[in-house]
C-alpha cells in the first residue's frame, strides 16, 4: 500500500517538474529555429535571432536603461533601508510593528496600482520627469526585500559582538562599519541581487512610467510581442534566463538563497 502510493507520488513529482521546465525549454528551442514564424517542430538551426536582438534599438537601450534603473534603485533601497532595519532590530523602537508595516506596505498595494498612483500624482500632478519617478517606483519595490531579508539576518547576528566592539573602544558608527557590515556583507549582496532581479523584471510599475524617450526592456519586449511573433523574443528570453541563472549562481555562492526562499514565501510574485 505504502509502496504503491510512493511510486505514484514519484511519478507525479517528475511529471510536474517536467511541466515546470518544459515551457522554458520550449522557449530555448524556438530561439534556434530558422523560420520567421514560430512553428513546431522547428526547422533548421540558426543564431540569427540572437543577432537580430542587437538590431532592435529598443532592446539594446532598454537593456541598458533597465540595468541602470535596477542598479540605482537597489542601491538606494539598501542605503536607505539598512539604517531603518538596524534601528528596528537594535534600538528598541516603540511601535516597531507599525514601522515594519509601513516599510512593507509596497507589498500590500498591488503593483499596478502603485504604477498608476505614481504616474498620476508625480508625473501628471507635479510634472516630475519620468526617470526619477521610475527609479522611485523601483525603489519602493526593493525596500521590502531589504527590510525582510536584513531583519532576518540581523536578528541572527549576536548583539553581544557589537557590545564587545563598543567595549573595545570602537564608537557605534565605527562598530557598524568595521564589525556589522563585514559580517552581513553576504546577505547585503544577496539582497542587492534580489532587488536587482525584481526591479529588472518589473512590468506593472514600469508600464506607467516609461515613454518614447525612456525604454525599459520588459515593456519593450511586451510591445514587440503585440506586433511580432518571431523567434527574436525567444532569443531575448534566453538571454534573460541566462541572466537569472547567473544571478542565482552568485547568490548561491553568497549562501543567500535560503533567505530568498523565506522572503518569497511571504510575498506572491506578480
Amino acid at each position, binding site marked *: 500500500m505504502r509502496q504503491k502510493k510512493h511510486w505514484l*507520488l514519484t511519478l*507525479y*513529482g517528475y511529471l*510536474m*517538474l517536467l511541466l*515546470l521546465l518544459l*515551457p*522554458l525549454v*520550449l*522557449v530555448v528551442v524556438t530561439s534556434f529555429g530558422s523560420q520567421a514564424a*514560430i*512553428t*513546431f517542430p522547428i526547422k533548421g538551426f540558426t543564431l540569427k535571432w540572437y543577432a537580430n536582438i542587437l538590431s532592435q534599438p529598443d532592446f539594446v537601450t532598454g537593456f541598458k536603461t533597465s540595468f541602470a534603473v535596477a542598479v540605482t534603485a537597489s542601491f538606494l533601497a539598501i542605503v*536607505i*533601508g539598512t*539604517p531603518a532595519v*538596524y*534601528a*528596528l532590530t537594535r*534600538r528598541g*523602537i516603540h511601535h516597531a*510593528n507599525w514601522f515594519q508595516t*509601513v*516599510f512593507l506596505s509596497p507589498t*500590500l*498595494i*498591488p*503593483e*499596478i*496600482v502603485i504604477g*498608476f*498612483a505614481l*504616474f*498620476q*500624482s508625480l508625473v501628471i500632478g507635479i510634472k516630475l520627469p519620468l526617470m526619477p519617478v521610475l527609479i*522611485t517606483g523601483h*525603489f*519602493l519595490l526593493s*525596500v521590502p526585500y531589504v527590510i525582510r531579508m536584513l531583519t532576518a539576518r540581523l536578528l541572527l547576528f549576536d548583539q553581544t559582538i557589537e557590545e564587545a566592539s563598543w567595549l573595545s573602544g570602537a564608537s557605534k558608527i565605527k562598530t557598524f562599519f568595521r564589525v556589522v557590515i563585514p559580517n552581513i556583507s553576504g546577505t547585503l549582496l544577496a539582497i542587492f541581487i534580489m532587488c536587482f532581479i525584481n526591479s529588472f*523584471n518589473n*512590468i*506593472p510599475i514600469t508600464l*506607467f512610467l516609461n515613454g518614447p524617450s525612456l525604454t525599459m526592456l*520588459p515593456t519593450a*519586449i*511586451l510591445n514587440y*510581442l503585440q506586433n511580432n511573433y518571431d523567434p527574436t523574443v525567444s532569443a531575448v*528570453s534566453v538571454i*534573460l534566463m541566462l541572466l*537569472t541563472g547567473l544571478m*542565482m549562481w552568485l547568490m*548561491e555562492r553568497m549562501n543567500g*538563497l535560503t533567505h530568498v*526562499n523565506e522572503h*518569497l*514565501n511571504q*510575498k*506572491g*510574485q*506578480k
Partner: protein
Amino acid sequence: MRDRRISVALLLPSLVGIILFLIFPVVQLVLPVIFGVKSNETYFSFLKATYNQQIIFRTIGIAFVTTLGLLVLAFPFAFWIAHQRVKVRKLLSLVILFPMLTNAVVRNFAWILILGRNGLVNTLLMDLHIVNQPVRILYTNTAIVIGLIYLFFPVMVTMLIDSIVSLDQSIDEAAAMSGAGPLTRFFKITLPQLTTSLLTGSILVFAGAMTAYTTPQLLGGNSSLVLSTLLYQQSMTLGDWRAASIVALTLILIALASLSITKVITKRISGGNEV
C-alpha cells in the same frame, strides 16, 4: 533624548520615502473616489454597468479557479519534495526558484508558444487528427488560468514545502504507534497541521491572481479583460482617470482584505506569528 534622535534619524529616510512616494500618491488616488462629488453614485454606477460586472466576476472567477487548481496541483508536489533527502530537496528548491526569478514576460511567452493558434498544443491536436481547425485557447479565460497557475505554482510549492518539512515527525510516529494507518494519519494528523499554510498560501495566491497584470495582458489580451488590465486600459488607452481610480480602489480593497484575513488566520492558529 539623544538616543531617540538617533533612532529617528535612522528611520526617517525610509519612512519619508514611503509616505511621500507611496502612501501619499495612493491616498491622493483613492480619496476623490471615496469623498469626491457624487462619489457613491459614480462608484455604484461603475459597479452596475454590465460590462464592468462581467470583468469583476471574471477576475474573481479566474482567481478562484487558479487558487483551487494550485491547491490540487502544488500540494502533492510539495509533499513529494519535502520527503526527499536534504540534498535533493535543496536542488529541487533551486529548480523551482529558477522560473520564479525569471521575467514574467518570458514565462508567459512560453505559454503563448504552447497555447497559440500555431502553438504546440494545436499542432499536436491537428497532427493526431483530433481537430481539423486550430482550437482557440489563447486569449481566453482558460489561458489566463493556466498562465497564473504556472506563475504561482513555485510560490505555493515553496510555502508548502517549508511547513511540511517543519512538521514534527514524532507526532506522526506516535499516531502510528497508536495504530493509525497511513491514510488515517495523513487525513487526521498531517493535513490538520497544514491547514494554516494551505489557507494563508491560498489567500496569498488568490490576492496575487486578482491583481496580476502581465499574465492576463499577454494571455487574455483585450478579449478577456480583468481588473488590472482594465485599469491600464482605462487610464492609458482611454484616458478615463475616474474609472481607472475606481478600479484601483477596488484592487487595493481586495489586497487589504486578503491581508487582514491572513493576519486573523495566522494569529488565531499560530498565536500571533507575523506573515
